[in-house]
C-alpha cells in the first residue's frame, strides 16, 4: 500500500515526533511549573526565550542549532566528547530541531492547565500529611493531565510537520533526516513528482487528524475522570 520511500519517511517522522515529545516532556513540565507558580528575576526573559521559536523564522532556529550543536559547535563538541552523542546530520538532530520548535506549544498547554489546578486542593492535601512531592504526584499531576496530554499531542503534531529548522540543521538525508515534509519537499523539486507528493500530502493529513482525534477522545476521558463524573 505504501511505497518503501513513503513508509520510510512515515516511520522516521513518527520516531522523530515520539522521541522529541518524550524527551521534552519533563523539561516542558519544569518550565511550565516555573512560569505558572514561581516568581523570580528573569521570568519575563525565560518566557520570551521559550516562546521565541513560535515567532522566529524556522531557518533561524535551524541555523542556531547548527552553530551550537553541529560537529564544530561548542555544545555539539562537548556532547560528543562526554557522551559520544552527536546531533549532526542524523535523526536525533531532527528530533532536537522538532523538540525546540514544538516546545512553546507544549509549555503553553501545560502552563494553562497548571494555572487551572485548584491550589486549595493542594493545601488540603498538605493538611492531610502529604509533602510537596506527594501533593504533586497525587493531586497536581492528575488534575493537569488533560493539559499535559494536549501539550504532548500538539507538540507531536508540530514535530511531525517540522520542516525549516530540520532541513537547515540536519539537511535532507534519505533514511536519516528525510521526514514526511522533507520527502514531500524533495518530490516537489523533481519533474513528475506531483502524484507521489499528493500521496504524501494525504498521509500527512491523515496522521495529523488521527493525532487530533485521539487527543480529543483521551482528553474527554481524563476530563471526566478529574471532574469525578466518569
Amino acid at each position, binding site marked *: 500500500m505504501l511505497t518503501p520511500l513513503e513508509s520510510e519517511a512515515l516511520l522516521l517522522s513518527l520516531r522523530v515526533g515520539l522521541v522529541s515529545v518524550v524527551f521534552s516532556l519533563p523539561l516542558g513540565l519544569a518550565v511550565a511549573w516555573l512560569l505558572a507558580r514561581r516568581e523570580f528575576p528573569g521570568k519575563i526573559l525565560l518566557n520570551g526565550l521559550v516562546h521565541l521559536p513560535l515567532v522566529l523564522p524556522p531557518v533561524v532556529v535551524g541555523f542556531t542549532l547548527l552553530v551550537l550543536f553541529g560537529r564544530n559547535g561548542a555544545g555539539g563538541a562537548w556532547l560528543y566528547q562526554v557522551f559520544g552523542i552527536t546531533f549532526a546530520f542524523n535523526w536525533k538532530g531532527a528530533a532536537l530541531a522538532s523538540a525546540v520548535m514544538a516546545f512553546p506549544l507544549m509549555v503553553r498547554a501545560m502552563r494553562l492547565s497548571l494555572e487551572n489546578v485548584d491550589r*486549595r486542593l493542594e*493545601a*488540603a492535601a*498538605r*493538611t492531610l*500529611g502529604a509533602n510537596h512531592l506527594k501533593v504533586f504526584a497525587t493531586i497536581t499531576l492528575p488534575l493537569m493531565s488533560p493539559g499535559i496530554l494536549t501539550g504532548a499531542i500538539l507538540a507531536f503534531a508540530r514535530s511531525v510537520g517540522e520542516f525549516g529548522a530540520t532541513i537547515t540543521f540536519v539537511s535532507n538525508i534519505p533514511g536519516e533526516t528525510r521526514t514526511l515534509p522533507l520527502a514531500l519537499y524533495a518530490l516537489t523539486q523533481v519533474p513528475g513528482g506531483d502524484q507521489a507528493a499528493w500521496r504524501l500530502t494525504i498521509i500527512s493529513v491523515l496522521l495529523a487528524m488521527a493525532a487530533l482525534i485521539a487527543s480529543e477522545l483521551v482528553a474527554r476521558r481524563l476530563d471526566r475522570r478529574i471532574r*469525578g463524573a466518569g
Partner: protein
Amino acid sequence: MSAMIELDIEKRLGEFHLAARLAAPESGITALFGRSGAGKTSIVNALAGLLKPDRGRIAVGGETLFDSERGIDLPPERRHLGYIFQEHRLFPHYSVKGNLLYGGKGGNGISLDTVVTLLGLEHLLSRRVAELSGGEKQRVAIGRALLASPRLLLMDEPLAALDAARKAEILPFIARLRDELRLPIVYVSHAMEDVVQLADTLALVDDGRIAAIGPVEELTSRIDLRPLTGRFEAGSVLRTVLRGQDATYGLSELAFPGGRLRVPHVDLPLGTVLRLRIHARDVVLANAPVSGLSIRNAFAGKVVEISPDRGPLVDLRIDIGTPAEPVMLWARITRRALHELKLQPGSPVHALVKTVALNRSSPVRREAETEAS
C-alpha cells in the same frame, strides 16, 4: 486551665493587620466568632501552617509549630492538625473511599470502620465526589480529616455553604466528635446559634484581634461585648439540667440555680445537661408578681446592668440565680417601659420568659460529670 493551643502572632495582609493572642483549653470546642473579614480564617490558617505569620509563636499540645525567633516553621504536613474547610475540598479524581484514606488509615481508636459508622458513610464509599450532596461531601471531608489522626481539628465555617436542612444533618456529627472521640476542635463561625450549640469556649475575633476569650455563657452575658456577640441576636445562654418530666401536660423541667424552666417535652434521660439560649426579645419584665398571664416561666430577680443605648430599645441584665450562683438573663424592653417601671441597677424585677430556643434537632450536651444541681 492547661492550654492546648497557644498562639501569639502578627501578620500584615495588605491593609489588614492581624495581631492575635489566644490560649485555648485542652478539650472541647473553642469557637472563633466574629464578623467576616475579622481574621478568623487567617488565625486558623496560621495554626494549620497555610499562612506564615510575620512574627510570633504557635504551640499545640506543648509542641512548638511556629516560632519566628527560633526559626521554627513546621510545614502543614507535619503539624498533624485536621482541617475542615468551608468548601469541602474533596479530591474530584478520587472516590469517596480514596478521599477518606488519602491522609492515612487512622489510629488512636479511629479506623475507617469507626469513621464510616460515626459519619454514616456506609453507602457512599464507592461513589465519586460529584455524585454526593453538599452535606455528604462535608461529612466525607470530616472523615478524611479524622483518618489522618489529627491531635486537633480545625473547622472553618464547615456549615456556611450548606442550607438549613444540610446543616441540621452535620451538627450532630460534630457534637459526636466532641463527645465520643474527645477531639479538641477549633470552630470558626459567624453564626451565634451554632456556637451556642457546640462550643464550650468562645473567642471573639474583631479586626484581627482576639477581643475576649472565655466560657460561652460568660461572654454572651457581658454588656461590653455585645457589639461583638451580636446585638440583633442578643440573648443569654443558660446551663440547665433535665430534672423532671410532667407526663400530664407533656412538659419537661429544666433546673438552673434559682429556678426551673418548663419547656415542651424533651426526650432525654434525667440528669442531661442542656444549654439553652433565651433571646432578649423573648423576656418580658414586670415590677411585681404577675397573675392572669399565660406565660408560665416567671422568675424573680434583680436588675444588674442596663445597656447605655440611646435608641428606643434597651437591654437589661437580670440576675435570676442565687447569691452563690448568679444566672444572667437578658431582657430587651423599650426605653419608655424602663422609665415607667423606674428600673435601675438593683431594682427587684420579675422576668417572664416567652419562649426558649431549644432546637430539637440540634445536639445537646451530655456531660454528667460536670452536672450542676
